[in-house]
């Protein structure tokens, strides 16, 4: 496990020149960018631009054919998703990927799994160490539940929740891991305005209160520009713009891609 | 909607709780209770049906003709277990205390026999396994409640061996010959292995073993191997669907069918008829005769089928049917023994055990019970629960089974020491001591 510490403002993760293809389809081509500790970093772009694939590369679900990813100063070769998680990278998914058969509480508790150490034998006994551990983490999770204002649905199976709440629970699960880097894949997709505002507030609060670095993908330009520190724009798998929101907003390539590119 | 679900749930609970309510009605009349574990369904039903019918019809005949045994009416109750060991055990537990207690069990399944060996010992109920079951259980002092009468698998193996030797003109002629042993690869099929291995060493013939995967539907590979090995004889330890499949395959590889000998569970009409022409000339061992030319079978036809009763007329006279009848005649004989000795009509299972240990089936007794020529003459004692049976070889002529050999006695010099050794091991593992027979 990586134990390097990165100070706020320094580069936490850098992606250099990565390319990814599925057979003949090129999802990402030669993209480089970085994420600084403590910032809110956005990736935007039209459908099929390779945004989700980029997140998938960062947390080890896809393995780019070319290029390197350096996290906390360590360049990694092919890595499994759970190893990425162990290094402090958590994420949410475009189409909610909650555990449908479990309650809200249990879903968020799964986020704590990397920190729970009691073995099978101790767990069967429940009494003693295992119970103590469970209670400690429960306390932490209850804080997250309070923070996300989902107390009322604590024991509800997540399959029965409306979409907006599911997104919130998913964020809670990612937060429970106390990540250093939080990847959010379209956290506001399909939400109404009010829900979006709530979600924005949560994202900014997370960033402020826990100092979590956030990298998010979003369609809604307005939201992105409001809450991010820096924005990268992808189109057809390539990078077409990168910078603070104002720069990007005025970038001719970006405007073309969004307005005149025939999408 | 949901309330309906709840009601259904409650109904389910009621259904599950119902076995609590099972109770046994008491009977005041003098009676003899003979529960019969049967398998009229499942993969072994073709063999299970005639054996069950034989037993049930016999007692129906006794009740009709004589009004029971020695004045006590015989109550036969079937319990279906589908050749499934745990259902067999359930049947045993369900029936053992009914009608004042079961007298004897005859499961016709090796698995159930093994599972019941301990239980019957504890409950003091005899377990009559005529022609099957534990080969070592013939040692009465080790298995006081198990009666593998007639001959066990080891004895039968030696009997078949002797027959093959006689065909060749003497046991020394077997030297250098190749014998293929085709067996169902479960407990039952494997019982004969050790004794064949011993004989192979002793008589210096080559033994080729061909296990057939349970239940023996597909045997192509086995028979291709046999074709290559070109054995002089094939001996088969099969049961159920395996048998007719094997007979057909033997015909396909054009093996001389009269050199193919099954054991006595591989030689019934159910095995040969489906095999069609391929089966003509096929031989098998037996300890009972087929056909209807016996007084006891005739009595069944008159007193049971003649009155429009009976379980299955097409089975009467078949190998398995007659064999079941033979077993019942021995039980009948044992009941008579016990009634005479203890002076009661409703004998207890413990008394029946005494009756079984004092079975002495001579020509005279057999004749008095209408079974002369149908089954073996046996003399059981406390230590010998086999009673010195032997084996016939029968042959299928396309219509019926005909006995083609003398009565062959087993090689007891090989069989008995092996039994004693195995029984001693059983006693040690179980931590029980042998009963005294003196």
């Amino acid at each position, binding site marked *: 496990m990586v134990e390097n510490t990165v100070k706020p403002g320094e580069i936490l993760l850098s992606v250099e020149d990565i390319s990814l293809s599925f057979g003949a389809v090129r999802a990402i081509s030669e993209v480089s960018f970085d994420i600084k500790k403590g910032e809110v970093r956005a990736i935007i772009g039209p459908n099929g631009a390779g945004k989700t694939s980029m997140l998938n590369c960062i*947390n080890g679900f896809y393995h780019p054919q070319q290029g390197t990813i350096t996290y906390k100063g360590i360049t990694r070769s092919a890595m*499994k*998703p*759970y190893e990425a*998680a*162990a290094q402090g990278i958590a994420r949410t998914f475009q189409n909610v*990927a909650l*555990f*449908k058969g*479990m309650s809200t509480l249990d879903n968020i*508790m*799964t986020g704590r*799994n*990397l920190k729970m150490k*009691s073995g*099978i034998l101790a*767990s*069967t006994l429940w009494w003693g160490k*295992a*119970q103590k551990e469970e209670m400690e983490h429960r306390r932490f999770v209850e804080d997250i539940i309070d923070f996300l204002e989902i107390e009322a649905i604590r024991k509800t199976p997540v399959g029965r929740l409306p979409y907006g709440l599911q997104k919130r629970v998913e964020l809670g*699960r*990612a937060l429970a891991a106390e990540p250093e880097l939080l990847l959010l894949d379209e956290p506001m997709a399909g939400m109404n305005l009010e829900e979006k505002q709530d979600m924005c507030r949560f994202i900014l609060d997370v960033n402020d209160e826990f100092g979590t670095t956030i990298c998010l993908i979003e369609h809604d330009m307005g939201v992105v520009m409001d809450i991010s520190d820096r924005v990268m724009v992808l189109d057809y798998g390539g990078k077409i713009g990168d910078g603070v929101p104002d720069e990007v907003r005025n970038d001719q390539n970006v405007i073309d891609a969004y307005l005149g590119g025939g999408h | 909607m*949901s*309330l309906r*679900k*709840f009601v*259904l*749930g409650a109904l389910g609970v009621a*259904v*599950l709780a*119902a076995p*609590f309510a*099972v109770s046994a009605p008491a009977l005041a009349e003098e009676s003899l209770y003979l529960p019969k574990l*049967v398998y009229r*369904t499942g993969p072994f039903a073709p063999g299970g049906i005639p054996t069950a019918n034989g037993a049930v019809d016999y007692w129906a005949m006794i009740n009709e003709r004589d009004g029971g045994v020695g004045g006590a009416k015989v109550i036969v109750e*079937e319990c*279906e277990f589908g050749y*499934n060991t*745990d*259902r067999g*055990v*359930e049947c*045993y*537990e*369900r029936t053992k*205390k009914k009608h004042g207690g079961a007298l004897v069990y005859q499961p016709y399944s*090796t*698995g159930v026999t*093994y*599972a019941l060996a301990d239980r019957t010992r504890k409950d003091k109920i005899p377990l009559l396994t005529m022609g099957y079951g*534990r*080969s070592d259980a013939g040692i009465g002092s080790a298995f006081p409640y198990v009666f593998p009468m007639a001959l066990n698998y080891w004895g039968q193996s030696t009997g078949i061996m002797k027959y093959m030797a006689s065909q060749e003109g003497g046991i020394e002629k077997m030297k250098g010959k190749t014998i293929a042993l085709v067996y169902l690869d*479960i*407990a039952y099929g*494997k*019982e004969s292995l050790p004794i064949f291995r011993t004989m192979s060493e002793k008589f210096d013939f080559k033994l080729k073993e061909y*296990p057939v995967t349970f239940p023996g539907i597909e045997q192509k590979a086995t028979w291709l191997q046999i074709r290559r090995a070109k054995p002089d004889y094939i001996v088969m330890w099969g049961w159920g669907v395996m048998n007719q499949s094997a007979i057909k395959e033997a015909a396909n590889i054009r093996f001389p069918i009269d050199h193919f000998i099954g054991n006595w569970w591989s030689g019934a009409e159910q095995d040969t008829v489906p095999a069609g022409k391929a089966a003509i000339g096929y031989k098998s061992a037996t300890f009972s005769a087929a056909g209807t030319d016996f007084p006891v079978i005739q009595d069944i036809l008159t007193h049971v089928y003649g009155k429009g009763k009976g379980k299955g007329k097409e089975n009467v006279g078949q190998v398995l049917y007659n064999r079941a009848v033979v077993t019942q005649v021995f039980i009948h004989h044992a009941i008579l023994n016990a009634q005479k000795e203890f002076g009661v009509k409703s004998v207890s299972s413990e008394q029946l055990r005494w009756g079984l240990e004092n079975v002495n089936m001579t020509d005279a007794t057999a004749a008095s019970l209408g079974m002369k020529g149908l089954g073996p003459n046996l003399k059981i004692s406390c230590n010998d629960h086999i009673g010195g049976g032997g084996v016939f070889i029968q042959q299928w002529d396309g219509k019926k089974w005909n006995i083609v050999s003398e009565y062959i006695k087993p090689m007891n010099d090989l069989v008995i020491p092996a039994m004693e050794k195995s029984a001693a091991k059983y006693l040690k*593992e*179980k*931590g029980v001591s042998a009963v005294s027979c003196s």
Partner: protein
Amino acid sequence: MFYREAGQFKSSYKEDQAVFPILQDRVGVGLMLLVAFIGIPLLTSEYFISAIMTPFLILALAAIGLNILTGYAGQISLGTGGFMAVGAFAAYKFATFSIAIGGAETTIPLVVTILLAGVVAALVGVMFGIPSLRIKGFYLAVATLAAQFFIEWVLVKFGWFTNYSPSGIITAPPLEVMGYLFDSPGEKYIFTLSFVAVMALAAKNLVRSHIGRGWMAIRDMDIAAEIIGFRPLHTKLSAFAVSSFFCGVAGALWAFVHLGTVEPEAFGINRSFAILFMVIIGGMGSIIGSFIGAAFITLLPIFLSNVPPMIGWDIGVDMISHMEFMIFGALIIFFLIVEPHGLARLWSIGKEKLRSWPFPY
């Protein structure tokens, strides 16, 4: 009315996460244990104890084992019978293994024997669980059949496992724990019940711990589970191990306590199917469901075959057996249509109804 939780406040997470947070449940389970441990042995017949309760409990244990794998971890397995067989034969080998310590022959204590048998089954389970890392769903189910047939074959084929018994049938030693002989059906039942009660509680604890959450996560969405940090290898194999441990112990109990002697065929493919049916009918992902399912599958046929003679209807045992099959099949379909998520769900719906009874709202 009778089943209301209102007014029962939890003042700590510990209370909230207790096995049975509701008072009525605690009382109910307490009563059930009381009945099971004292009532049944005292009040019911020997037939009921030895031919119904004991096998039912053992199969329920195996069903819990499979439920852990299939219901909680989402890996369908048809190798249950095989793992039970491993348990039974391992127990036999341990029980007949004696070492001479200080001149006297010493055997392994019975309880240890049975637990060790479970451990062996767990190891074998892990071995056959490895394909689950690549194979999923029905494909995996069929692949676990390889385990079923292979294990059966090995036990039949190699005499060492049966101490060279000529028929391949093993005979269990007497059940002696610390000098006390469990001999009568009642004693054997208590022996089984103790095992099953303790292990069911252990299973309940496991599935509500982080380990159980890992299994459920893998079941519900394996990719997401991996991304939030569950290692698929560990999670799946631990499910295989725990599940096989339970099945192994069940197998050992089946051989040692219930039947006394056992042949490999007793753990054949039909057994595997029967236990899978228990899990699905009872309810996947439910410990109590395993018991209900086992009750349904083992008791219903016995009940059905008892009914016609009880009401004096003489139609022949074969016909009863056929009808038993038909009714059984029809009931499975019926229950699936009424409640696809198993009898356990029906049970909890019932509880919810009772909660508001007699007022529907």
